[in-house]
């Protein structure tokens, strides 16, 4: 794999001010690097901040603090106008394939929109013929018939609409695509098709993905690296195989054992979590996971664990990592 970093996020914080003077910490000191050509899976329970992180990485939501460096340029403080030329290098696919398409515009119009507002590589406005040619190219890329261009979003199924969203995201040939749970709203059979489409496009176009999901099976299939989030922070990050087969963080282990398996393994120890995710308005002291952690020790509630390197291309934030000496 090419080792050049495409996107670096450092110490991202995102806070929401709530009424009565409270603050909700959606992101609490998140740092990560996305390498050129890799697919970084972002997993965690709903409400853990993975969508917020995805949106912050693309500057769709404003950060409270932190830096984002994309292709060597710090974009965290750029204005919306200054961001516009950079936007075509980074794109997003949303979870709700219907809500992310304007219901009153035809598919062709929707996909042509980025082509109309961005000049081509020579800095010229694209001609109508160029746009039509590109639309045809995109439709065959995502496996939809040309006739779909004249139709409206509501005429398509969820899977087809997600193909339309992907076509629109790819219209400007971006480097980075952030996919925010692109398959969670789809039927399982359709999920596989869309995940395969993502994989196929990555191979053909050399794309880099940040793939957000709560379904570990999907993440395992597509990601080269995985970051596990809990309550607005990354608790473990590393190569997919390492993290998912040999988790260091008790939360990762719990997530993995919560995946339903077709064959019941009697020897397997399931570590099921009790209780609810604590409120991000008042996160627990020390390790944010200690309230639900089966391995929790007194030290965990006093001292916040940092992300530590374990030498196997993986980092985890735990005082007492599983299967590894501390």
């Amino acid at each position, binding site marked *: 794999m090419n080792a050049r970093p495409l996107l670096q996020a450092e110490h991202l914080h995102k806070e929401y001010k709530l009424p009565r003077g409270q603050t909700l910490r959606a992101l609490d000191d998140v740092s990560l690097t996305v390498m050129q050509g890799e697919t970084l899976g972002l997993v965690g329970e709903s409400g853990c901040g993975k969508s917020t992180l995805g949106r912050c990485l693309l500057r769709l939501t404003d950060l409270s603090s932190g830096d984002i460096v994309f292709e060597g340029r710090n974009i965290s403080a750029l204005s919306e106008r200054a961001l516009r030329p950079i*936007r075509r290098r980074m794109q997003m696919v949303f979870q709700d394939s219907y809500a992310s398409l304007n219901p009153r515009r035809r598919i062709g119009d929707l996909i042509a929109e980025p082509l109309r507002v961005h000049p081509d590589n020579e800095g010229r406005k694209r001609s109508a013929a160029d746009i039509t040619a590109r639309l045809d190219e995109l439709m065959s890329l995502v496996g939809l018939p040309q006739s779909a261009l004249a*139709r*409206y979003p509501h005429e398509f*199924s969820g899977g087809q609409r997600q193909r339309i969203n992907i076509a629109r995201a790819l219209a400007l040939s971006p480097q980075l695509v952030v996919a925010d749970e692109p398959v969670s709203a789809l039927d399982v059979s359709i999920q596989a098709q869309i995940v395969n489409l993502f994989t196929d496009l990555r191979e053909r176009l050399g794309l880099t993905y940040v793939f957000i999901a709560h379904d570990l099976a999907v993440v395992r299939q597509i990601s080269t690296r995985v970051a596990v989030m809990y309550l607005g922070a990354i608790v473990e990050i590393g190569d997919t195989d390492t993290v998912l087969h040999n988790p260091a963080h008790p939360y990762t282990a719990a997530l993995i054992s919560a995946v339903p398996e077709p064959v019941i393994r009697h020897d397997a120890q399931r570590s099921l979590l009790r209780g609810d995710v604590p409120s991000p308005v008042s996160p627990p002291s020390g390790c944010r996971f200690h309230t639900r952690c089966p391995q929790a020790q007194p030290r965990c509630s006093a001292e916040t664990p940092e992300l530590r390197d374990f030498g196997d291309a993986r980092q985890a934030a735990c005082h007492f990592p599983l299967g590894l000496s501390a």
Partner: protein
Amino acid sequence: METQTAASAPSPSRASVPGPWRMAGRSLTANRSAMTALAALMLVTFACLLAPFYAGDVARTDPFTSNVAGSFMLGGQEVDIMQPNDNPLHLGLSPVGPTWNPSAYMLGADSQGRDVAARLLYGGRNSLLISFSAALVCIAIATVVGVSAGFFGGFVDTALSRLMDIMWAVPVYLFAISLSIVTISQGLKIGPFTIESDNLLIPIFIIALVYVPYAARPIRGRVMALRNAEFVMAARSLGVPQHRILLRDIVPNVSTTLVVLTPLLTALALLAESALSFLSIGVQAPAASWGTIIQDGEGLIYTRPMVAIAPGLAIVIVVLALNILGDGLRDALDVRETSRRGA
């Protein structure tokens, strides 16, 4: 859900696909009560447009000058417009009652001897013109206010919304009456332009103004919902400039709200116009509107009730039809609902 639509969605053979507007049109034409209401409205409008023809060629009367000494022919006999009062408690004369003969004071005469039927049609022209224009002006202003407040948020939103709240806190009719009394008594001078007190622009703009908060509020709400819609975020992530998002993504989705509001506001404006004219601060004599005719009929309510009943019924029919049409439009234009039903 998935398999069902996957099978029914793209059939490449059909060349032109009906857009959301055409689909709404189809849904509206299938709505029988909305179509009845539309037919009634068109009938009334058409009849009112033919007012000069009726007055000149059918009734052969002058609906604007008083004619207390006149007479007309009915069934070969000459009949006085003003007749001795048949009510034992009232002395003096009362106007002729309805003859139900289109060419001879069909709905009777008012206290000045003018043909009520002809005045009803002329009055309808003014009432409909004022209420429809007022609704359009109102929606135009409310769109600017509501879209700016909803899209820009922050200070713009706070300022505009509080202004709307203050306006809405004043009772609509009281507000309209106050504005009308001032402008009707003095006329209106705006720079080099002077608007005379009998100009219809005065009631149009006053009614439009007082209903701006009523229309701006739902528009603002819709825009705020749209601003946070995922397709607007998608447009931002594509690098679409803000003004283009506003024009291409937000305004087209607000237009359905505007279309639904138009008949409802026209109905409200018609009621307001009638009220103002009834109080002599809307359409000015000798011109007629349904409100002024009701006022004319007020004094005759015991002897010749038709003078007040006819315009009253006209108002009821038009307002009812407009409201039914508005409901029909709302059902037909609910994109989300129809599409979810399809999906």
